[in-house]
């Protein structure tokens, strides 16, 4: 019982922190959504502990804690993948900006020289 209480409180704190960061523009909504979903699920699990056992049994896990570890691991991978795709976009945009600036400065040089 204690563990659930602890996990639930932690999830509530996480929700509060994430919302605060978003409202202070320290975090964009698209990154916040996944964290908020995870925290909400954790709160639900803390409120209804039997749900964890039920779902883990349904998914074929013998020990519910293994199920939790598996899901947690999967979520972290998802966050990682999201960041990788965003980073790819940002890299492409930086590359494009570098090209634009190079073209602009070449134009400046031409004007100065000619």
């Amino acid at each position, binding site marked *: 019982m204690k563990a659930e209480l602890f996990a639930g409180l932690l999830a509530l704190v996480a929700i509060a922190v994430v919302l605060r960061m*978003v409202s*202070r*523009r320290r975090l964009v909504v698209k990154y916040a959504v996944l964290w908020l979903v995870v925290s909400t699920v954790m709160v639900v699990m803390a409120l209804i502990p039997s749900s964890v056992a039920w779902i883990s049994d349904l998914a074929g896990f013998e020990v519910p804690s293994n199920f939790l570890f598996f899901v947690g691991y999967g979520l972290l991978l998802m966050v990682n993948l999201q960041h990788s795709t965003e980073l790819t976009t940002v890299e*492409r945009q930086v590359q494009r900006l570098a090209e634009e600036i190079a073209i602009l400065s070449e134009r400046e040089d031409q004007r100065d020289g000619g």
Partner: protein
Amino acid sequence: MTGTTARVLVLLPAYNEREALPGVLAELHETLPSVDVLVVDDGSRDDTAEVARRGGARVLRLPFNVGVGGALRAGLLLARREGYDVVVQCDSDGQHPPAEIPRLLAALAGNDLVIGARFAGEGDYRVRGLRALAMRFLATVMTRVHRTPLTDVTSGFRAFGPRAVAVLCAEMPREYLGDTVEALVVAKEHRLRVGQVAVTMRVRQGGVVSHRGLRSALYLGRVLVMLGLALMRLVRARRRSS
């Protein structure tokens, strides 16, 4: 500030608008020969920028698509740097008749930001379903926030006075819906006076509104999340200042 001597810049964010743009620019030039026109090409895949230049407008060409909010930031920044007093934002698809611009400018006399509103009795613009519900809800909330009737808060037909230009060139949110609704919350945070003028709008000359079923439900969800966060920010700003 908003008399005939004010320097006015008409700002048209444009994404793949080569079809509609020449007509829009010609009409603008005809009805308001004295104003400068700036097209912000938001990373179009077609030759929007060339078409705009040929139509006599100045063009800011963004190297990739940044969304309406981002395009507006660029245009407002240029306006501020070059000392324009007033910026009028219009769609580049011909939805917003240039003949209505003087009425927006007139309303800037008592306001920092004026919205050209579709649902305020003029014209026959209609939306239905969940999207309509979302828009009506947003209008109600924004009316409360600004303590003045605002019936069409997602309108992209707006006039910005000097104070609004100064604030929004730095604070205009780039996120989805940020350029319309959230910008109004930002305006409140900075104590800008917001008003509206009823305008007649036309059917857009190209493109379709794509909000049906699941998509409009998703739209409603995003609206609620965005609004909730924006209002949280507003409450915090108020608490800080009092």
